[in-house]
């Protein structure tokens, strides 16, 4: 799973020995312990585990939103802050977090409106995409001029995904974006994300606590266990692409979901 610095070519995200403690009112929580992880370019990798396993914390460290206590994180050979300064990280939060005063199209265009300095930096791997094209791909073309409060929860989350993709960043970090959706909207959103990802093939690190969601979306599932948060195992998902809703009815899919859940359970028991 991990490589020596010499052959990190083609590695989008390299994490070495990351540690993280949270201290609140005197009590300390060991959130992450000895995290090593390589995410190859253009792969869809999911951090999967129960609440408290540190998966969201790890994602925030990758984004530079949180500092680690020890260890190293490199995104395309540079620290997160440098990647962020070039707008090379797209962050898709848990809630859509759209700006209510902007239309859906203006929200999708947000990355173009802030940090203009990044647009003048050379050597960026960022290729901004047309917001309207993305809104159409996500079935939101009729709502491009609507404001977020006129949209359903599922549509808002798709608009948030459009904003992420429009940025054109080579690396996309998604923090349980579908966890607040009802089951039907959630399935629809997962399938549109799969479709979109198969079209643009960005490097994605996705956080979820749903084994089925992890298997449906990913090339690799990183299984994490809590107290302290560790990577227990990495499961390769060798399901064919393009993936569709029909895949979820196959035996291979069911077997992989069971396998991922078993892997988590065995790791959890070993940890306790």
């Amino acid at each position, binding site marked *: 799973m991990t490589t020596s610095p010499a052959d990190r070519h083609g590695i989008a995200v390299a994490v070495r020995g990351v540690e993280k403690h949270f201290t609140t009112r005197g009590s300390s929580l060991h959130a992450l312990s000895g995290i090593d992880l390589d995410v190859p370019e253009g792969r869809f990798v999911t951090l999967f585990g129960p609440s408290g396993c540190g998966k969201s914390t790890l994602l925030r460290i990758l*984004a*530079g*939103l949180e500092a680690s206590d020890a260890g190293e994180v490199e995104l395309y050979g540079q620290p997160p*802050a440098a990647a*962020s*300064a070039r*707008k090379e*990280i*797209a*962050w898709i*939060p*848990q*809630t859509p*977090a*759209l*700006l*209510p*005063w902007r239309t859906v199209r203006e929200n999708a265009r*947000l*990355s173009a*409106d*802030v*940090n203009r*300095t*990044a647009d003048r930096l050379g050597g960026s791997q960022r290729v901004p995409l047309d917001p309207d094209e993305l809104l159409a791909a996500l079935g939101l073309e009729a709502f491009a001029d609507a*404001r*977020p*409060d006129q949209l359903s929860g599922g549509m808002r989350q798709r608009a948030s995904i459009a*904003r992420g993709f429009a*940025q054109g960043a080579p690396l996309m*970090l998604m923090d349980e974006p579908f966890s607040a959706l009802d089951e039907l909207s959630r399935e629809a959103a997962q399938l549109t994300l799969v479709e979109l990802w198969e079209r643009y093939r960005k490097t994605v690190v996705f956080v979820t606590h749903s084994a089925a969601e992890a298997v449906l979306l990913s090339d690799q599932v990183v299984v994490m266990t809590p107290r302290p948060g560790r990577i227990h195992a990495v499961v390769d998902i060798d399901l064919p692409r393009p993936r569709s809703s029909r895949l979820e009815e196959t035996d291979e899919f069911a077997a992989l979901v069971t396998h991922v859940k078993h892997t988590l359970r065995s790791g959890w028991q070993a940890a306790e």
Partner: protein
Amino acid sequence: MSALTTTTPRRADRTSTGRRLGELAAPLVFFVLLALAWQWTAYHNRSLIPPIQAMVTDLSSRPDYYLAQLWETLQSALIGLVIGVSIAFALAVGIVHVRALRTAVMPVALLINVTPIVAISPALIVAFGFTRTPHIIVVAIVVFFPMLINATVGLSSVDPQAMDVFRTLSATKGDVLLRLRLPSSLPFVFAGLRLSASTAMLGAIISEFTGTSKGMGASIMLATSYLNLAQMWSMIFLSALTSLALLGLVAVAERMVIRW
């Protein structure tokens, strides 16, 4: 059948207009009762309040006088409002960016807020003389605090998940202020403006009790010394209506600016 289909909506119409009339009727009836009580009191106790027709007669016999006083007070109120609100907002922007500024400004702002404005007003007349300046300063002081608090809360009330998106984009402080903090603060700013708009008239009138012969406050004081009840109460009602109009203007502006 046709009778049914035509009567049903008509009946629905009648109930909805009836309900609307009912909603209007309650305050109207109350208002008429108040006016009757007012007239009754005015006739039985002539030194207490003037009868309504005395106010109407005074207002209609010299509207220029009333308008001149109103305009005088309104100018102080509006200029003071703009100055006080602008300073408060600028300080709020500073406070959300520099922690030291918050701890420095807030105690002083609180102190100004608890100082009785009627105590400051004469001191300002001594300092600035018989000009408009002391009245503007009084207004600026009374509108300052509600706006400072509301703007500070508003500028800090940013969706943390939206903030995460801005941070991963390495958005500049200017980006965050202009595209996230300012729009997020607008509902709070308008709430502050509603408070400030009504206190602006209050501040202007109170400050005109001393150090000037012009304005609604001075006119009320003058009426007091001549026991001119009609003028006094006309001014009181006029000032209330002006405050109401200012509040209405703020509400209209709010509806035009906040469209989400």
